[in-house]
Structure formats: C-alpha cells, structure tokens
C-alpha cells in the first residue's frame, strides 16, 4: 500500500471544499498531479497544492492508497467524501462532511468531526476518536434514504439528529448523544453507550436503538414488551425492549406488525 502524506501549510481564509481528498482521486497519481487537483475556496477554484504540502504518491488503485492528513484542518470540508476503498487517516479535527457518502475503505479521525459526518453512508468503516457533531450518519436534506450500510464508531459524544432517516448499517457512540436519535429510522442499528436526553426513536418505523445510560423523557409512542438478552458490539447484556413509535405507520411481515425496537439497558 502506497502512502500519500498531505500537510496543511497555508490556512484558507474562508473554508476549503476539498472533496478530492480521497483514495479514489489520489490513486495512480504522482505528488505533482495530486497537488494540481481542484479545491474550492468560496467561488474561487484553486488547487490542493496551494494549501497542502504533498509527499508520496498514490497506489495503482484506491484500495492500494493510504492518505495521511496532517496539520490543522479545522477549515477543510469533505475529507474522504465518496471514498470507496483504501484508507484515510486524519490526525487532527476536520470540519463538516467528513466521510460523507462514503462507500468503502477505512476512515480514521484522531480528533473530532463537525456536523454532517458520514451522511448518506453506504459502506466502509469510519472511526472518530473524539466527538462528532450533529447529523452524524444522517440523510442529506430532503433524502428519505439515510445511511444504508457501513460502521461509524465515535469514541466521544455525538450531537443531535444522529441516524436521521437511517436505513441500514451501524452507528456506535461510546459517549452521550444529544436529542433526536434515529428519527424516521427504518432499519440499521444505533448504539448509544452513554445517555440520550429525549426524543429517542421519534417517528421510528423499523431498526434498532440501544441506549446504555438514561433517557430523560421517553417518547409517548413506545410500549414495553419484555426483557431480552442481546449481543451488542461483541458483548452480551440484558435489555428492556420497547416497541414503537406507535404513532407512526408500520409495515406487516408474515402477518406480524414490524415495529422499531428500542432497547434500554437494565
């Protein structure tokens, strides 16, 4: 696997839209070619080379390409957007849309990510060692197909609206989340190992939400079913299972109504 290291040298005055920082775009390119890739600062089309020092070259394919992003990237958006394979390591905290519409490969952020990280994600593995902002793994505005697959793991806390319109895949938050977990969720799994204040699973149709800590205010449309032992993230534990949201439409499968499942750790 070939490694490309890009280091921030000139901070953008406004914010930099760098949707070309992805193994798919870097594959098969030399350092000088990577430096010539487009980036946008406001309406100005510039190049990555104007902002980043670039060392190394891309592998033959995306899968053979590893990108290490060094320096302060707090004003850089869209890192790892639509990446389908390979690996990206961000050493500090990037801005919005990190790993947006990600399809495969591995994206590791050592710092925190801002809002809209991993929106519309389809596959791959996305690890955030710090905190995540709002709309983690959510749908893009107006889209009713949110996250479809892949894994997002946040070691810290997450903001509000995680897994909005989620359809598949897994989101694991080791810390707390803010309001609105899995709103309009139709499938997939959200695991919050800390607390979630309120509005958990509102308008939920299907899928599973696990909360290890407390929920201050439950949604009215959740009814207790039974206690269940479930294996979550490699360990077994006992949970109280609730079905919901009973105010929302629910499809039938084999004569049985399919509900969204909310598990509260006992």
């Amino acid at each position: 696997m070939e490694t490309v290291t890009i280091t921030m040298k000139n901070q953008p005055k406004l914010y930099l839209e760098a949707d070309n920082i992805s193994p798919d775009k870097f594959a098969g390119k030399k350092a000088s070619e990577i430096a010539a890739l487009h980036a946008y600062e406001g309406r100005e089309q510039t190049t990555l080379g104007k902002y980043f020092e670039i060392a190394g070259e891309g592998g033959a394919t995306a899968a053979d390409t590893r990108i290490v992003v060094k320096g302060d990237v707090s004003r850089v958006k869209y890192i790892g957007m639509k990446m389908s394979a390979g690996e990206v390591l961000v050493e500090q905290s990037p801005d919005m849309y990190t790993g947006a519409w990600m399809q495969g490969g591995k994206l590791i952020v050592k710092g925190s990510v801002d809002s809209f990280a991993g929106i519309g994600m389809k596959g791959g593995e996305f690890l955030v060692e710090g905190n995540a902002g709002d709309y983690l793994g959510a749908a893009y505005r107006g889209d009713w197909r949110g996250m479809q697959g892949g894994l997002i793991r946040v070691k810290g806390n997450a903001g509000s609206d995680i897994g909005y319109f989620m359809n598949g895949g897994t989101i694991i938050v080791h810390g707390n989340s803010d309001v609105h977990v899995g709103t309009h969720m139709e499938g997939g799994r959200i695991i919050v190992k800390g607390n979630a204040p309120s509005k958990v699973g509102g308008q939920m149709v299907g899928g599973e939400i696990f909360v290890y800590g407390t929920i201050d205010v439950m949604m009215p449309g959740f009814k207790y079913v039974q206690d269940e032992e479930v294996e979550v993230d490699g360990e077994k534990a006992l949970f109280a299972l609730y079905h919901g949201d009973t105010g929302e439409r629910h499809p039938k499968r084999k004569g049985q109504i399919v509900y969204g499942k909310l598990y509260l750790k006992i």
Partner: protein
Amino acid sequence: MSKSVTDVICPFCGTLCDDLEVIVSDDGKKIEDIYNACAIGAEKFMHAQAPERVKRPRMQQPDGSYKEVSYDEAVEYTARMLFNAKKPLMYGWSSTSCEAQSVGHEIAEKVGAIVDNTATVCHGTTLIAVQDVGIPSCTLGEIKNRADRIIFWGCNPCHAHPRHQSRYSVFPRGFFTNKGHMNRKVIVVDPRVTDTAKLADYHYQVEQGRDYELLSAFRVALRNEPLPETVAGIPREKIIEGAEVMKSGRFGIIFFGMGVTQSLSKNHNIDNAIMLTKDLNEFTKFSIMAMRGHYNVTGSGQVLGWQFGYPFSVDLSRGFARYNPGETSSNDLLRRGEVDAVFVLGSDPGAHFPISSVKKIAELPSVCVDPHITPTSEISKLHVPVAFVGVEVGGNCYRMDNVPIEARKVVDPPEGVLTDVEFLTRVNARLDQLMGGK
C-alpha cells in the same frame, strides 16, 4: 379635498390584507389617513411620511459618523464589494417585491453568492420538514368558508397577525360556516397564556420544548394505542379528548408559528405536525399552514424555488445551487466566518440575529438596503434608502397560503429616491462592466 385609494394591499405581515383604504392628499403626495388596517399596518404607511426619513445613501466613516453619498457612489461600492468577495452573503428579501428578488438572484448567480431569506431564523425549519414529508395545505379562503376546527400551535395571531382571526380563521362567516365563530372550535397549544389562548375553547399548556412529544401523543391517540399518564405536562384524558375534537370536525386546520419552528426539535416538530395532519385525513379533511411573518417571505421562497430549486439558504458559490441549512444558513455562515461580505435587503438581521452574528456583519464589508434606519443600517458600512414596496412602488407579493397578490402604489416616493428594483438593476449593470461581460 382628499381622495381615497381603495383595495390597498398591506405590506406588513404574511396575512397580506387586501382591503385597506388610504386617504391621500389632493396632490397625491401625502398620506392623511388609513382605514381597515391594524395598528402595525397603519404605522407602516404613516412611517413613510416621517420627516426624519433618510433620503440619500450614507457611508459610515471611520469615526462612526455617516456621510451622505450619491446613488452612483452607492452602486459603485456595492458592485465592487460583491465583485471582490470570494463568498458574499445576500440576506433578506422578505420585505420587497418578487421583481426585486429576481434581480437580486441574477446578481447572486453572477458573483457566486449565498442567497438566504428571513426564513432562516423563522419558518426555514418548516421548509426543511416540507421537503422531508410534503405538505397538505389549502388557501385562507377555504379556511374562511369551510374550517370548523382551528388549531393555533405555538403562534399568537392576536399580536403577530392582528387581522388573521377576523378575516380568515376564527370570526368570519363563510359559505359553510355561516355562524362565524359559533361554528368553530379553537384549540391553542402554547406554554404561555397568550391573548390567543384566552379566546380558545381548549388551551393545551404544553411544557416548553415538548411539542414533539405532544404531537406524537396525538398521533398515538388517533391510532388507539396506549399512552402514558401525562405527556408534555398534559394528562392522557385531555390528549384523547383533543384528538376526538379534531376528528369530529368537517374541516380542520393547524396554524403554527415560531413556538414550534424555533424551539427544541425545530424541523422535526413541523415534520410530526404534518404527519398528524396526514393521519387526521383518515377521519376528516385536515390542512396545515405556516403563519409566515414578513409580507413577502413566502414570495422569496417561491422565487428562489422556481429559479434555483430551494426555498432559502441557497449557496451559488460554485456556480450551481446547493442547499443545506446548518451549513449554508446565514447564522452558521456568519458565526463560523465562512463569508467575506454581507449584503442585506428588506430585513433587519441586526435586530433578529444573535450578537455573535451581528458582530461579524459589523466587521465585514456590508451594505444595507432599507427605507428605515435599523440596527442593521447602523452597523453596515453603507446604508441605501429605497422606496417602500406596497406604499411608494407596486410589486408582486405572496400571501402565507402561497397566493400571489399584486401590491399597489399609493403615493410617490420622495424625489430622487430609487426603488429596490432600480438600485439592484444598476448594481447588476455595473457588475457586468466589472466582469467584462463574462
């Protein structure tokens, strides 16, 4: 002798009353009296006559004082500011005509600006919800003639839309509602006992920030599913009773305002309210409508919608339209430092935005186009006074139910004062020169 101008449109709130009568002096220069308008609407007309009105553009000096400049200099400054900026913000558009908005959008497309209107701090969340789940709505005329279940959720029309209840929603006698308010049941959901709540048949004093739960609870009640004992501070029995009241009507309408669009849950509140409306249509006819504030904020959404596909927060910086409130909305852009120039027309962010955003406007090159002296004009580098739309110049406006109404001119503007359209057209022409016809 004075003459009377009838059927005048009121350019104040989204109700866009179209029955005002304005008494104008014989020479057609002075407004003497206004009939039928509410106190706020009447004040808007009278304010145009104020002797202290600014009639020439003013440029802020380094010591904070203002120096009068010509319109030519104002056009030059505005065009250069937009030309030099990498990502200018063009905010406002809600208190002007659709014609002016259209010229503004042409400029925005040229300079790669972000166009945002006052919905961003108002009913923008409604527009997000509408995009997510659609909206079953109707016109105010239908409500007057048919509606017998009126729900005001998080809004206070007694003060914000003073003639709304008498013209459309509560008191008028319509075709199928010939007993006026005797035909109607009014439900108000508000944590405070507002004047609107005082005239309601049912007042749900919801806990602050729990509208989402209460909306869900109504939906659960409609499906006969079990409910907890209390939801959002409301006992279960009252929720079931409310659901029955809604179901038993022939035609119901939910009006909602800032109480739900800008409190906790924001767009999700509206999303759930729209889904409640959809659920109620299983039992009877139900509609839902946003209580839009500025008289032409709906028009701004309409014009942006047909020109770019999105109703607010439209980012044109890369030559094609993008939209994501949270990133491309004015407050986020200003607070994060994503824009390098601010152009404001037909709104007052200086009064409506958080102080952290207002400080940014004061730091950046900024132009404020507004007939009044406002907090925004006081912090902008350049203040350009213009004629009042709906008083001194006509133009198209959209009512809160998306019905277009042509505003009328009543008197002439003060001599030499440009209209929004004239000023923007001159800026647009100057930009063409600066860009060399590109």
